[in-house]
């Protein structure tokens, strides 16, 4: 079953068309990477899912229930972490989670156990200070804790790792990976290594539409090998190859990159064998999401 289904979603800001007929399905228990350039409409889509933004057309369903702008009933299935989460700075993290728990209608004992469990999970268990003194990474972690509080069916994270240092990023990704056991995660990002690391599915948003969607393996397979890297032992060998084959690109003194079909590659290999050119490494360039992304947005 799809936790989230979006059909033909449209949104304009003035004359600027941000979303023009977006279709998206997020299957249960996946970690779904929502990839797009800055300004592609990722946040707009997320706000529409949460009923915070009025769309100009299309339908959104959460667990089969239709989302209406300004109404919050479908949000009981959702945990949301905005890109820069803002909290009431005069509260402590436990007080904030208590407020959130009471707002979602949880009982007192439930709030206490769940809050403590989540604060431990995100590493804020020992933090007694008010939120005012929190770093960005700590706020992001508290954001995940509040989003997971009512055991949502869908956790939506808007660029959760964009503003963090590598250590902070790793922490957040690990928490999201751990959250997969309990919920479905939809997170937007433009950091593709994060997607490759934890996502099971991904979709590319481009020109207001989903340009490509599928499991990570499917997406990788959509693109044929990107080319080869040939590293020679000596510089003269590289020089000879470049002179003979104009389409080789030099990246380092002895390293050449070749883009093109298999036939072309074998003719280079044939030349190498015939002229006994000493080669150190021949490596196939694996297709990456990054190259796929660049191809999509071309």
């Amino acid at each position, binding site marked *: 079953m799809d936790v989230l289904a979006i059909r033909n979603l449209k949104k304009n800001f003035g004359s600027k068309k941000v979303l023009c007929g977006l279709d998206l399905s997020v299957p249960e228990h996946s970690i779904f990477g929502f990839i797009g350039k800055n300004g592609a409409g990722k946040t707009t889509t997320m706000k529409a899912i*949460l009923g915070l933004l*009025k769309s100009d057309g299309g339908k959104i369903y959460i667990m089969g229930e239709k989302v209406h702008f300004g109404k*919050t009933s479908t949000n009981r299935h959702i945990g949301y972490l905005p890109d820069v989460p803002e909290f009431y700075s005069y*509260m402590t993290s436990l007080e904030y989670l208590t*407020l959130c728990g009471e707002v979602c209608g949880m009982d007192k004992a439930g709030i206490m156990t769940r809050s403590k469990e989540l604060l431990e999970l995100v590493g804020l268990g020992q933090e007694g200070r008010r939120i005012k003194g929190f770093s960005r990474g700590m706020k992001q972690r508290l954001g995940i804790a509040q989003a997971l509080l009512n055991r949502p069916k869908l956790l939506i994270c808007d660029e959760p790792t964009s503003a963090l240092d590598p250590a902070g990023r790793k922490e957040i990704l690990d928490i999201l990976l751990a959250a997969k056991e309990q919920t479905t995660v939809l997170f937007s990002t433009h950091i593709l290594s994060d997607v490759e690391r934890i996502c099971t599915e991904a979709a590319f948003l481009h020109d207001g539409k989903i340009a490509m969607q599928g499991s990570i393996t499917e997406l990788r397979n959509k693109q044929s090998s990107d080319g080869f890297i040939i590293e020679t032992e000596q510089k003269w060998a590289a020089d000879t190859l470049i002179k003979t084959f104009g389409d080789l690109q030099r990246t380092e003194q002895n390293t050449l990159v070749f883009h093109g079909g298999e036939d072309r590659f074998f003719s280079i290999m044939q030349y190498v064998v015939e002229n006994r050119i000493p080669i150190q490494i021949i490596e196939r360039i694996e297709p990456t999401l990054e190259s796929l992304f660049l191809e999509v947005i071309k």
Partner: protein
Amino acid sequence: MKPLLAFMKKEYLEAARTGKLLILILLFVLFGIMNPAVAKLTPWMMEMLSDTIAESGLIVTNIQVDAMSSWTQFFKNIPMALIAFVLIFSDLFTKEYKSGTLLLVLTKGLSRYEVVFAKTLLLLSLWTFCYGICFAITYGYNAYFWDNGIVNNLFSSAAIWWLFGIWVICLIVLFSSLLQNNTGVSLCTGGTVLLAYLLSLIPKVKVYSPTILMDTNSLLIGAESVDAYIKAVIIAAISGVICIAGSVPVMNKKQL
């Protein structure tokens, strides 16, 4: 109901921890003490200044002060306290729009009307509480120094002025749900009061304008009865309810 109570609790905690509550209490206590103090000190001040005044040809005779002077002072000072109240709380909604703090609680299932109601109840209760403190202090000192009995319609006058404060609060809530920044909220609230005042200058309209609720002098000296204020009271109450009820759909359609 539970989300509303939880959000109200947050509102009171915010007022307390951000120091707004303390400032308000200090301000209203100060005004409460000032009213009788100014009345009490007036003869002494006049005596101090009598020489200067005499030079300009005026002779200061024995000045009589009583509870009436103190209550006149109360109704002169309370507008300033209300202005301070408006300025302190003009960012009650707009601060949340700007910082984005509402986003998370709304996505947790809090309804937007509950945001409007919680904040309105905070303002109404704080105004009632602070106004009550100010009134009680002035009343206590007046009873100690003089006799509150000489003042006519004291409690009705106080209630009428309290209602004017409530009306202004309803305006704050309406403009807070309409506008994005607190300067706009203060200006529009002030502008509406000014407009109501200008309308009250037209003799036929006067009795309907909520701004006459501020002018309780004639009620205190017994020149007029409470009946003269009934129409304005009804208009203030109805327009106040309309403001709050109108804020809910405005808030529902607000893009955050």
